[in-house]
């Protein structure tokens, strides 16, 4: 799995962030931040709480305006797209928000069908079948389809949110702290699910996380956000054996990280 990219020759860059700067009022979030995300990898973004991990995800997904620099997805500058091109691009990525962000007025099946309905003109029976298929793929039982988000547990909401993010078989999925709020068993299952879906669907996964288990369990590469930029990228093992930055040392060589590697 870790050598997956070698079979495709030189790695293809699907997201390129170049010299990104961003500030809220007087608070500087990023200065000159650069990052490449390669096709088919699971990239973990780690960083201190309040360090801008979620803001970076929102910038890439086009939810936050950026100040300086460029973000290219599939080789296109996302700031220079026409409205139609943007719609087309949005069908090629999916976002899983922290608590699933399911639409409360729709049941789970309808939630999954929202992107299909918006982007393509599919017959209802096909959408129903595909909806159930996605549910099964994210490990939800069939009877969850007719439940409303308020009737689901946190873990089920995340799975349903993932099913919606995968509704159109996107090439990239963005996950915002997918294992936060789950118990260790649920978190491990979710990690395994992400790894399996990544293999099955050939996804590129961009995962914001705090969870050391996820990083060592599923991430091919880790990018560390500190001091308002990406200070290092590398495989989890590389970062642990050669931190090169005080924050990375504290993070990867702390008490909790040692417990995992033991």
């Amino acid at each position, binding site marked *: 799995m870790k050598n997956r990219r070698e079979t495709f020759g030189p790695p293809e860059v699907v997201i390129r962030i170049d010299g990104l700067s961003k500030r809220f009022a007087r608070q500087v979030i990023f200065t000159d931040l650069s990052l490449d995300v390669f096709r088919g990898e699971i990239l973990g973004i780690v960083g201190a709480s309040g360090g801008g991990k979620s803001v970076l995800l929102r910038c890439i997904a086009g939810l936050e305006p950026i100040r300086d620099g460029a973000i290219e997805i599939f080789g296109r500058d996302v700031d220079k797209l026409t409205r139609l091109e943007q719609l087309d691009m949005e069908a090629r990525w999916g976002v899983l928000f922290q608590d699933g962000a399911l639409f409360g007025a729709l049941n789970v099946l309808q939630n999954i069908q929202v992107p299909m309905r918006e982007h*393509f003109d599919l017959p209802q029976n096909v959408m129903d079948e*595909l909806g159930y*298929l996605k549910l099964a793929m994210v490990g939800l039982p069939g009877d969850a389809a007719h439940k409303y988000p308020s009737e689901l547990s946190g873990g089920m909401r995340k799975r349903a949110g993932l099913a919606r993010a995968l509704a159109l078989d996107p090439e990239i999925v963005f996950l915002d702290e997918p294992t936060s709020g789950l118990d260790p068993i649920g978190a491990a299952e979710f990690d395994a699910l992400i790894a399996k879906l990544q293999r099955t669907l050939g996804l590129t996964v961009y995962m914001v996380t705090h969870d050391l288990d996820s990083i060592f369990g599923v991430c091919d590469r880790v990018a560390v956000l500190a001091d308002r930029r990406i200070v290092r990228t590398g495989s989890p093992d590389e970062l642990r054996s050669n931190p090169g930055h005080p924050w990375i040392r504290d993070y990867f060589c702390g008490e909790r990280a040692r417990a995992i590697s033991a």
Partner: protein
Amino acid sequence: MLKRNRELILPTRGRAPGFRVELRGVVLSLIATGSWTVREAATLDRELNSLILPIPPSSEFTGEVDVSHVEQLDTAGAWLLHRTVQAWSAHGIGTQFVGARENHSILLDEVVRRAGAMQPAPGKSNALVRLLADAGRTFSELGRDAVLLTNFLGSLTTVLGRVIVRPWRFRGVSFVHHVESTGLRAVAIVSLTCLLVGAVLMQQGALQLRDFGAEALSINMLGVLVLREMGVLLTAIMVAGRSGSAFTAEIGAMKMREEIDAMRTLGIDPMETLVVPRVLALVITLPLLTFLGDMMCFLGGGLVAVFYLGLEHAAFLERLHDAVSLRHFAVGMIKAPFAAIVIAMVGCLEGMKVKGSAESLGIHVTSAVVKSIFLVIVLDAIFAMFLPGLGL
């Protein structure tokens, strides 16, 4: 009947952008080509549905779905192929996938394993039954609400008694804060609304009474109507919409974040800290706002009388002075504190009823406004029945 092992290619009707169907000997094959993704799914679904199998069901034939020429495959495409395999097998021709490349076969296997989990939606009961059930639920809720409100009034009274005995427990800062937010900050909107309603009352009254030559009587009507009913009702409705809903939202938000539970564990009585200051603040501010509203209605009526109907302002004031008495003013003002208690109680009670979710907060804010306005009007009707009996 075809003989086995003869390599015969029969072109069939099955020809579409994404696939072609061929019969070679006893093997019927669907050769999928190009892109099988969700983008093409609608077209492919239509074409596959209109496909007519050229052979009768027979165990002599076998089917295959050849996916070696597929360039792009996603879940939707894989499912359509899987459905075809199922349909052909159900037709009596045992069918399987052939020629899948490695990256496609992972997806195909997954889809084959996961498909068919469809579950029917839970059936909806008869519309009439649902209507009756709804009506029943509404009435039982009405009863429960009445019980809850009475209960709330009871505990409010006990807590108020406790505060009177131990006045140092009274939350002065909170009280002043709520006087400011429900009273002072409502001055502008209450004034403006009452000014406009007073002006409209005067103008409409004068227009209607002009036909009877009794134009001047519209001032009497304005005076009595505003002091007895309009002033207090308008103000109470404005305050219910403004402050009653705010009470629900504030307390409800605290309930959602478990702040109320935290208070209880710290030995703080939410009734004492949250409800009492709000109720008392509104009992002070609503009568004051009602007085302001009365005066603004008169101002509005006076402006219309002077500038629109052309009366002398001294004549307007004299007529108004003759028309109203302290009795009328008292009838209006007496209702204000009661309306305040109803609005504050309903607001706080609805806030306490909020459950964990944001939807629940929205529902209770709406129902606080609806219930408090309704109860204020009921209260007004009750006063209208009893006050004449007291000679007011």
